[in-house]
């Protein structure tokens, strides 16, 4: 009879690790390729997306910079991006570090942390280091594919340059 540890390893082995790392990587690629319409689909229907600062996060303060609870609010963000908000066109390039993960047997979710740096590229050609921080993710399988149940984006800096309209 396999021990509890062996069981856990069986439920979360190399394949699962690879699959989860793949989700984290493809999220960044989708954002960088301008596929903002796909953004809500990376989440479960009730998924949470929250951008905050390290200062707020460590102080346990609930308001950060952006907070979506459920795909509906994410779809509204996307719609606002296309038709309501006004900003200078720009794109991102995400560099996401190697994720660390732990498997929570009770919920069947994976908790992952990865660091990121995002360079913002303006139409003029100017490139700036726009954001650095960490992703704190809760990932679960839904209808056969992995989704974010929660993605907390913790920015190292309190300061956002100009504005934030494309999710990080």
């Amino acid at each position: 009879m396999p021990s509890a540890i062996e069981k856990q390893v069986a439920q979360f082995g190399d394949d699962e690790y690879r699959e989860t790392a793949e989700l984290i990587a493809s999220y960044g690629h989708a954002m960088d390729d301008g596929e903002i319409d796909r953004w809500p689909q990376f989440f479960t229907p009730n998924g949470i997306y929250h951008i905050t600062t390290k200062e707020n996060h460590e102080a346990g303060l609930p308001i950060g910079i952006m907070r979506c609870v459920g795909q509906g609010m994410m779809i509204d963000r996307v719609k606002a991006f296309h038709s309501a908000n006004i900003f200078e066109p720009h794109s991102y390039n995400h560099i996401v570090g190697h994720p660390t993960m732990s498997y929570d047997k009770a919920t069947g979710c994976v908790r992952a942390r990865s660091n990121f740096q995002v360079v913002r590229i303006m139409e003029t050609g100017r490139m700036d280091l726009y954001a650095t921080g960490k992703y704190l993710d809760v990932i679960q399988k839904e209808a056969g594919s992995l989704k974010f149940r929660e993605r907390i984006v913790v920015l190292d800096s309190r300061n956002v340059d100009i504005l934030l309209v494309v999710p990080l």
Partner: protein
Amino acid sequence: MLTAPHPSSAPAKPVLDFKWPAEGIARAPYRLFTDPEIYKLEQDRIFRGRSWNFLCLDVELPKAGDYRTTTIGETPVIVTRDHDGKIHAMVNRCAHKGALVCLKKQDNVASLTCVYHAWNYGLDGQLKGVAFRNGVRGQGGMPSDFDVAKHRLQPVRIESFCGMIFGTFSTEVEGVEAYLGPEMAQFIKRNLDRPLRILGTHSQTIHNNWKLYAENLRDSYHATLLHTFYTTFKVNRLDMDGGIILSDEKWHHVSFARRAKLQEAAEYSDAKVHSANYESALEGPRLLKAWEEFDDGITHSIQTVFPNMCIQFTLNSLAIRFFAPRGVDKTELFWIFLGYDRDTEEQSQMRIMQSNLTGAAGLVSLEDGCINEFVQRGTRDDPGGASFMEMGGRVAESEKNSRATETAVRGFWQGYRGIMGF
């Protein structure tokens, strides 16, 4: 031919060769946004002059020994709470060599010590001790007439009003409440005169002169034209009535609006908290779930206090915006999102969701992060040009029935001209 200057006989040169256009406050010369000499003069005449400057909130310094750093204009400032609970403010500049004494945004300390030569100050800014004052092994040290009591961090006069701490370098300016005037003070009391709770903060760098943001806050004309979130999502705002109140000196203002629908909803609900169902095309309608907090029917307000702060109350989203000049073409805009101690969990949740409306990523406000930069970039090569602001007339007067006016922007310039002597 070169002639040597004769300082004694030379005519007094004006501080600045600048003349306001004859059209008055309906014009703002573009030079005001780009000229480093004007920027320097503003530091003197406004920020170190006859104005009250927002420093921080009382709740940011809950314990004895807490300090918080900020700026008045470009001058670095420390705010402390001493062991008697008294709040002090002082310039963050050591009396010895001028180094910054406090480096963190906030901390809790027994006393203030400059890291350079360990000069040590009490929480009130008074010098307490000097390292090696008597020298080392009888050699060196301060002259025998050196008196610790004669040195301190430069004090800043402070006053607390509705949980906000204001500071000034002026000995002449009246108290904060008189500086605000009765109508402004009353509206601040409506919004802040009860125990406050900070729900979150962040800041945003905007690449424009600080006065462009000061104008932008007072510009009720642009609100529904630039910020199309409301119309895009068919959130009904056509029934909103509102107006603008200016202070006596015209440089502070309140712009307010009422949603009639909210009032109707209040009539058939006994509950203290009820949601207002906005007719919207939102997929996530809980973004705008709100309750009526006040019985005056006002559901949206923006209130400015000259020179560089604003209190926002959008539905239930209460926030202080403080915009600190960081150079002639750069401003750091701070967002302090607030709730009240008395808020229920449900009310807090509504404030949290509504915080999506404003801030650096605000669905209704993010455009302000770039629009002022567009003006900065559009005008920087034309210092002789001027903006044209005649919407709603050419003077600065309160307008209690309409917000289709630039009256508050003109009011800012009226106050600015006064304090700058332009």
